[in-house]
């Protein structure tokens, strides 16, 4: 089985799916002839033609608005927003049209679009190449929101997103685009949307994360194993729909929880998870659910290392929770 990076896995998936289904269309800024600034769509235009794979004008509002129309009329668009930081001109289209299309037309029309976009910090990207804006979309009913951590899940969940009847915002953790390598089967497979991965079993505390943060979490868990704390690590993979049974079962078992997220702490998705755990695991909690997140500031360039909730901070959050 070949080893792939996330980029390779995504590219491979797109090639496979485009060959399989001629209703697939992909477009975005520099995502046609150039293959995307991160090379995710490399080779697609050459193989499948300019009508199906093309460069758009510099207009995120247009990319999504256009995609909605394409989807309404029977094709399947996979559009790319070059950086999640630039998704906001498209926010009206996503929130008011894409998310509500099926609902407002009582199932006569739908906007089954996949919006792919690299998100997250750690590459010296400053305010505009580092944001994790998932929460802005999680607060909008009607959107499926996915954030993978590795190549195997990237292929499985992109395939599932393409199959999905719902609009999907597919966040790609740019920091680990190339640094995480895994074996990826060449045969077609899906990873179910809405199912978290129990990456590490443990008994003392539940650690929840997603995207690039998951690797920091695993690092913290391995460290703590040496110190006698047995951490159970959950990788959500899908943010909405949230795998409630998995997180509830885990926290009912361990009685403690830390949620880690790069995004600013206030209104990070971790707040919703914490509220859910409070509701559903109240009697099992031996300590408050702790959230290890970014600060409530724009994502800084130079002080990025200080800002991010790395393995070291996660470890301390776990220790604090164990000692509560």
């Amino acid at each position, binding site marked *: 089985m070949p080893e792939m990076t996330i980029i390779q896995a995504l590219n491979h998936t797109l090639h496979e799916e485009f060959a399989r289904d001629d209703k697939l269309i992909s477009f975005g*800024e*520099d995502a*046609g*002839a*150039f293959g995307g*600034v991160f090379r995710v769509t490399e080779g697609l235009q050459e193989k499948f033609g300019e009508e199906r794979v*093309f*460069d*758009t*004008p*510099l*207009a*995120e*509002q*247009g990319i999504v608005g256009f995609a909605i129309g394409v989807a309404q009329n029977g094709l399947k668009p996979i559009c790319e927003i070059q950086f999640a*930081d*630039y998704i*906001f*001109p498209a926010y009206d289209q996503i929130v008011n049209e894409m998310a509500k299309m099926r609902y407002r037309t009582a199932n006569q029309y739908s906007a089954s679009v996949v919006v792919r976009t690299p998100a997250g910090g750690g590459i*010296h*990207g*400053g*305010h*505009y*190449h580092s944001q994790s804006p998932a929460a802005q979309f999680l607060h909008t009913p009607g959107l499926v929101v996915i954030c993978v951590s590795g190549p195997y899940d990237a292929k499985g969940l992109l395939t599932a997103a393409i199959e999905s009847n719902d609009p999907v915002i597919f966040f790609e953790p740019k920091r680990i685009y190339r640094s995480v390598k895994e074996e990826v089967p060449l045969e077609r497979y899906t990873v179910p949307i809405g199912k978290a991965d129990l990456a590490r079993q443990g008994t003392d505390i539940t650690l929840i994360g997603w995207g690039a943060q998951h690797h920091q979490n695993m690092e913290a868990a391995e460290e703590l194993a040496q110190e006698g704390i047995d951490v159970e690590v959950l990788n959500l993979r899908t943010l909405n729909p949230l795998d409630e049974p998995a997180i509830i079962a885990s926290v009912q078992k361990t009685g403690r929880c830390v949620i880690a997220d790069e995004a600013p*702490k*206030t209104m990070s998705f971790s707040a919703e998870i914490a509220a859910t755990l409070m509701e559903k695991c109240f009697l099992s909690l031996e300590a408050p659910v702790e959230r290890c997140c970014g*600060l*409530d*500031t*724009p994502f*800084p*360039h*130079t*002080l990025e290392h*200080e*800002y991010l909730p790395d393995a*070291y*901070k996660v470890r*301390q959050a776990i220790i604090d929770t164990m000692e509560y």
Partner: protein
Amino acid sequence: MKIPTVAYLDPKGVLSRSCRTKIPDKVLLKGYRTMCLTRHNDERMITLQRQGTISFAMSSKGEECCAVASAAALKSVDWMYPQYREAGIAFWRGMSVEGYVNHMFCNRNDIIKGRQMPNHFGSRALNIVTVSSPIGTKIPHAAGSAYAMKVKKEKSVVICYFGEGASSEGDFHVGLTFAAVRKAPVIFFCRNNGYAISTPTTSQFGSEGVAPEGIGHGIKTFRVDGNDFFAVYETVQKAREECVKGKGPVLIEAMTYRLGAHSTSDDPSRYRDDKECRKWEKKCPILRLRTYLEKKQLWDEKKEEKLQKSIKKEVDAAIAAAKEVPPPTLDSLIEDVYFEPTPRLREQLHELKRFFPGDE
């Protein structure tokens, strides 16, 4: 519709007789020096990035004239909204090389405290509004800012720079519309440099360039040779007069070419022909102005050598100084999010200091 391109100084440095505008020698010389400084500084910054010393760099290679000549035609009270490929405006208005390089190092002496990526220059003192990465977002800002000037009855204008790619963004449309309807004294300066990262103009719009869009918005529109110091200078000067007279906004489309990569993260050999570059190198704005100046006996080989030496020395010193400056303080992390940091933010900073007790 046919929109003529204003051009006076050809690539060989010959000034057309149809040019009625007299540019003072000292302006031309300062313009030339500033363009040279910009180009050299850009190259040095890229080298630093390739050495891993700074994280990112861009260059305005080939487009220095768009920035410098337009800045030369304005007054210091005029506000400027750059996109990111106009570093020359900062040097024209007097930003020190050390100040610029400290910003590129994103260190403690960076005027924006290391918060944004390098190449996001700006200075309130110089009336240059700090760059931000998203494309086109400044266009409506410029319109509003100009309108405020009008309301306050100030005899000044705003200039907003952007590439041709920005004309595809919704912000371009709304910015022009608002400016047109409110008759805001703003000059929309579009550097049509042929590419938006890898996207050529043929994939960017259906119109013939950006100028027709100005006409479509009911705005006075000019098209100029962006590498021609005289054409740019004269047109911006004219545009400024229009604005100050209350005639409304102006769109200038400057035809030019991006000789370098989009940024240090880009490799243009992957999407364009070297031949094209070499063709445009011959139209280089610095080269043609130098040739003109030499013809006018205002410049020579010795002066050139002296200039390049002094520029290199200045940049060397700025880099050496910047290397010694520490990163921004931890406290700066929560400043300026709001006018005053909130209690929540103070708490978060306090928690953060647990992990970094040595840092201030």
